[in-house]
């Protein structure tokens, strides 16, 4: 399965600032998924990032708040804009496997953001 590296692993941010999370995959993948896990909650899909087109956002998430870039098939960024304490979460990047593993998502270790 793919190996996914996320940066930063954790950060403490001030209210009103923005932070960009990077996701690097060791192989080329068509789709990358960004998830959020708020404290005590399930993993919630934010958006699907496709190379060469705009990201597709899930209900409740908007591009102005969570802009996503996907410049090539191995890299994506998620920006959390104008942060508030409610944005304190773990943000996870994931990709689908190939071939027989196409129905399984592989996740990065996550980026734990704390907003003060």
């Amino acid at each position, binding site marked *: 399965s793919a190996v996914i590296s996320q940066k930063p692993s954790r950060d403490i941010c001030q209210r009103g600032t923005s932070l960009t999370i990077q996701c690097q995959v060791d192989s080329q993948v068509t789709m990358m998924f960004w998830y959020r896990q708020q404290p005590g909650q399930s993993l919630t899909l934010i958006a699907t990032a496709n190379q060469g087109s705009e990201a597709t956002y899930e209900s409740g998430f908007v591009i102005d708040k969570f802009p996503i870039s996907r410049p090539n098939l191995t890299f994506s960024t998620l920006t959390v804009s104008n942060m508030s304490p409610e944005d304190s979460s773990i943000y*996870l990047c994931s990709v689908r496997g190939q071939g027989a593993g196409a129905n399984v998502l592989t*996740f990065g270790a996550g980026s734990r953001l704390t907003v003060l």
Partner: protein
Amino acid sequence: DQQVKQNSPSLSVQEGRISILNCDYTNSMFDYFLWYKKYPAEGPTFLISISSIKDKNEDGRFTVFLNKSAKHLSLHIVPSQPGDSAVYFCAASVLGKGGADGLTFGKGTHLIIQP
């Protein structure tokens, strides 16, 4: 509205015994189900899956059972080992969409294996 529900936030089991983690879903379109395991400070890792055409899938100590009529699945771990202590997430997807969608997750169950 939670489409995948794990109603037990935590479960404590003695080492060597069977651990049974439960999951319910409401969306009848789901046809592929997965269990993930998550340690602190790590991302979720895939454990085992089952397609809706089956009612059981086994991999070593891990067995997943699916009851489509009840919209219920369970993960059995036997025998339970200390390294099994982690948060377990149930997830579901609709394969008919060509795998284009992400997964829908439950809130997780924290399994604690006691020596």
